[in-house]
Each structure stands twice: as C-alpha cells, then as structure tokens.
C-alpha cells in the first residue's frame, strides 16, 4: 500500500498538537521534555487559550522551549522564572501564565523565587522537570540528585557528608499556604502521560480560576546525563527515583475540574 493512501484523514488516529511546531528539537532522544512539551501544547489548545497564554522558559535544557511551542514566551534568567511569572500574571490577570523549569533552575538557584511565588499564592502554574541532574551543562550534580548517584561533579556518587540530601522541594511546596495543587507525575508510560496531562489541565484551570499557585513536578529521565539507553533510563527511574520522589498528589485543595 502506498504511503499516500495511508495518510488519509479517515485513518488519522494520532496527531501532533498544532501549537507544537515542526522545528527539530534539540532534546536528546529519550528525553522527557518532548512529551511534556506535547502535553502543555495539548492542554493550552484544549482550553482554547492559544492567544492568551504567556510561558516563561528557564535556563537549562528547556531554555529553548520557546522554539517549539507556538505561544508568546519570556525567557528568564537562571532560576528567576517564578518572579517573571508573578509580575506577568498580576499585570495581565486574564492570561494563562506558567513557568517551565528544571531541577537546578527551580530547586537550587531559584529556590527563593519558587518558594515565595508559591507562598504568595500567585495564580500561576509551575511545571517542574526533575531529572536529578544538570542536563544542559553536561551532567553535573543537581539539588535533586539521589544519594549514591554519580554525576560530573560527584563522580564517586553523591554522599551526605559532602553534598547534603536530595531536596524534596515539592514536599516543601505542599506545606505552603499559597499553593492549591501540588502533584508529582511522570511521563514514562501511556498511563502516566494521561495522568500527567490531567494534572497539567487541573493546574492551568486553577491558575485561570484564581485559586492560587499550582506546582506540577514531572519526574523525568535524562538518559544522556545518566549515561543510559532511554529504555534503561526509564527502568532506572522507576526503581530509584520513584521510591524517593513518590508519585501522586501531595496537595489538592481545589474542587474537581474536568
């Protein structure tokens, strides 16, 4: 059968979201970012907020998120995305405003901005990609790097005496009065992807309903940084990351949304 015969509208079972453009992504094959980008694009379109969304991209691998999702973006200095988002949302209250940040950006250099934006109850969503490593700079230790995990700056494995403990910042966020929804998800299986999409939708709905700050952590793989095949990285994440960073809602004070 010819490919043109197959590519008919009636045969369409899956489509790339329209907000996700055709540029070649710089992300490594197997990286979780592509899946999360797709989900963000789908949720914005589902909410019909394409013309009213302002994203804030971080410094880290997702710095170029603005190259792939066709909405308006502001690219923040390292760690400062929640400060930008706080101001944007207060100045354009009817816009959907979210940040997209990695673990180094959010839980290390930007801890103050993260905690205070959440604690003020800013009507924003923070999407937190936790892959326990600095991907863009070449695999250094992150605040969320697990004990024993080897990185370029803890080549013999992370140890408490030298490096302290992996930071569970999402648990911290759940303690803050300003947060209405704090959840930890992943995108390593179809089921997990569907759950993560629902979580993003709930968070974005909260932002638009003025319920306060939402944080959606996505426990992710960095197969390049972890020096594993994508498949092995998923297994390693399941066996090592999930016991420490347990999936599920940590806090949900909101009413059920569709």
């Amino acid at each position, binding site marked *: 059968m010819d490919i043109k015969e197959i590519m008919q509208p009636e045969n369409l079972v899956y489509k790339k979201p329209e907000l996700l453009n055709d540029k070649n992504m710089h992300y490594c094959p197997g990286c979780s970012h592509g899946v999360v980008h797709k989900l963000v694009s789908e949720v914005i379109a589902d909410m019909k907020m394409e013309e009213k969304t302002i994203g804030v991209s971080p410094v880290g691998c997702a710095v170029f998120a603005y190259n792939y999702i066709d909405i308006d973006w502001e690219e923040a200095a390292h760690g400062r995305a929640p400060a*930008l988002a706080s101001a944007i949302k207060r*100045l354009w209250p009817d816009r959907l405003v979210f940040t997209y940040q990695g673990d180094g950006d959010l839980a290390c250099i930007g801890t103050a901005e993260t905690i205070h934006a959440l604690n003020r109850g800013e009507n924003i969503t923070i999407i937190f990609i936790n892959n326990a490593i600095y991907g863009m700079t070449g695999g250094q230790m992150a605040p969320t790097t697990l004990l024993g995990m080897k990185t370029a700056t803890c080549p013999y494995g992370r140890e408490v005496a030298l490096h302290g403990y992996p930071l569970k910042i999402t648990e911290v966020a759940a303690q803050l009065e300003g947060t209405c929804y704090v959840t930890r998800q992943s995108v390593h299986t179809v089921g997990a992807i569907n759950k993560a999409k629902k979580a993003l939708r709930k968070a974005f709905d909260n932002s638009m309903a003025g319920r306060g700050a939402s944080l959606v952590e996505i426990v992710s793989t960095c197969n390049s940084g972890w020096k594993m095949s994508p498949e092995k990285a998923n297994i390693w994440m399941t066996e090592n990351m999930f016991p420490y960073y347990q999936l599920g809602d940590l806090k949900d004070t909101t009413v059920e949304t569709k």
Partner: protein
Amino acid sequence: MADQEVTLMKGNEAIAHAAIRCGCDGYFGYPITPQSEVLETLAEQKPWETTGMVVLQAESEVSSINMVYGGAGCGKKVMTSSSSPGVSLMQEGISYLAGAELPCLVVNVSRGGPGLGTIQPSQADYFQSCKGGGHGDYRLIVLAPSSVQEMADFVDLAFELAFKYRNPAMILTDGVIGQMMEKIVLPPFKPRRTEEEIIKQCPWAATGRLKTRKPNVITSLELDPSVMEEINIRLQNKYKVIEEKEVRYEEFMLEDAEYAIVAFGSAARIGKKAIEMARAEGIKVGLLRPITLWPFPTKEVAALGKRVKGILSLEINAGQMVEDIRLAVECKIPVEHYGRLGGIIPAPDEVVDALKRMM
C-alpha cells in the same frame, strides 16, 4: 489649576507619586535605606484601587528586577527602586533587560560603599550605572536629578526614553535628594495605557500570541556567534543614536567663566553654592551639570575645555566622572577631582578651597 498641586515632600515620595501619575503599570521593590519611602508611599497610596497600578514587595532585589523583566517583557510600564547594595544584586537582571531590549525604570537612591558601607549618601555608583554594572556590552540611559522636582519629572522622562529606545533607564540619585523635602509641583495625571494600546505600542511584547502574528519571544539568548555579533552591533548602533540625540545638561554662570565645576545631582547643588562664594571673592567660575550621565555630555564638556583654564570634577566619591571629563577634554587642560567619601557630604567652602588649589 487642579493638576498644578504644589506640595512639600521627600524625593523618594516624589518618585512614588510621579510613578502613579505617569501611568506606571507596576512597581516591584524591596526595602533598603535610604529609599524605602518609595515602596512605603506606594503602599499607602494604594494605586491599585485608583489607576490599577500593581505594587508588590518582592522577596529580594534579585526577584524585584526579574519581576520588572517579566512586566517589561509583556509590554507594561514597570519599575523598581533600591539603593546601592540592592542595585548590585540587580545587575544580572539589568544586563538581561538590556540584552532583551526591554524598557523599564530602575531608581538607585545610592549610598556609600563598598559592601554594606553606610546608609549615608554617596555618588560612588557612577561607574556601576554608566559603565555597565552587569555583564556584556550594554548601556543604561542614566538620569541624575538634582532636586525633588526633578525626581518627580524624571520618572516620566525616563519611561519616555526607555520606551522610545526599548532600553532600561535609570534614575541615579542619592540619599540627599531621596530624603530631603522640597516644594514641588506634582506632574499631571496620565492614564495607564489600555491593553489595546499596549499591544499596538509594543508589537514585540509577550502579550499572548494572536493568530495574526508569529509568537513573540523575549530573550537575550543566541548561540550562533555570527547572529549574536549582529545583535550586539545593532545594540551599539542604538546606543550611538542615544548618544547623539539624548544628551541633557544644565549650564550655570558659565558665560564669563575662567574655571568650571562639573557636578551632577546633589553635588551640583553644593557646586552652585561654592560658585556663589567663589564669585564673591572674584573668581570667575561656573558649573556644567550633566543631567544625563549616560549619554555623557562629552561634546559640551569638550567645548567647555576650550573656554576655561581648568575643570574641577565635584563628586561625592573617590573620582569616577572625572575620567569621562578628562577623556572629553583630551587632557588638554587641568582636570582635578574633589570629593568626600563614606557618606560625608562636601561643604561649599571645601569646594572653593579645592578650586583655589587648582588655579
């Protein structure tokens, strides 16, 4: 006239009132002496109930300046204020604002340093303001008010220039002007721009991507060095235009002057008193006051250098602007510096003595 309200207030309070009146959309700040009255006055005035202006106390100056970045990037007229140590913390954000070509206003009510220094006034942040306190080849438009009236007037002027050139602007003042009370006429009210006006005036801003256009991305990042060089060249060309068109200065008793004092901000006020005293002794001296510290009035100082026998750079610092004066006159005449440090304000008679030493 209803708008011509003569009132008595501090320089810091004037900044706050002028911000509300010029249609400012947002202020983001953090307390620090000697500028805290800016945020305090805004909190007291509650402009969010009248003009709709957002006022937010941030968790740090780092956050304040990044809130300003966020607000400026979505087309809003936003500002912050701080004092020297806080402005040092803001330098990363200021560099990003300059790199992303975002209009905004940063007010530095400066104090003595280095380090935590003192809460007393100083002009020691001239280098930081005019020579690029953050990383990269960039410039700020720097205005130096010399009175409480100018504190109020320069808020609107700074925003006008910032939006005209899509460049951050700074008001560099000090604890003298920030804290002293003077009679001023508050500027008339200008309404805040509507959302439609903002989208029209700032077609580059991240306001939500309409289907009729491509996405707007506010960024200073470019990994291709050839493209990044082009961006830098474009910035430098913009700075050249600002240097040609936006120099502002004041001349005082220079018509018959044989000597000149060059001083800005609070030091210019001391300079004027010193000139009165020196002229009473028969010394023909006048003053040139740069109002824009960047762009520096280089041509005007060069021309002055051809008319006078010597220039005294009066600064409340260890000698910073004096370098720009010497460059302007190409060291063809004596250019001396006089200043006090650590929060000490020079007295006019000290300045007359310094003038005599130069003669």
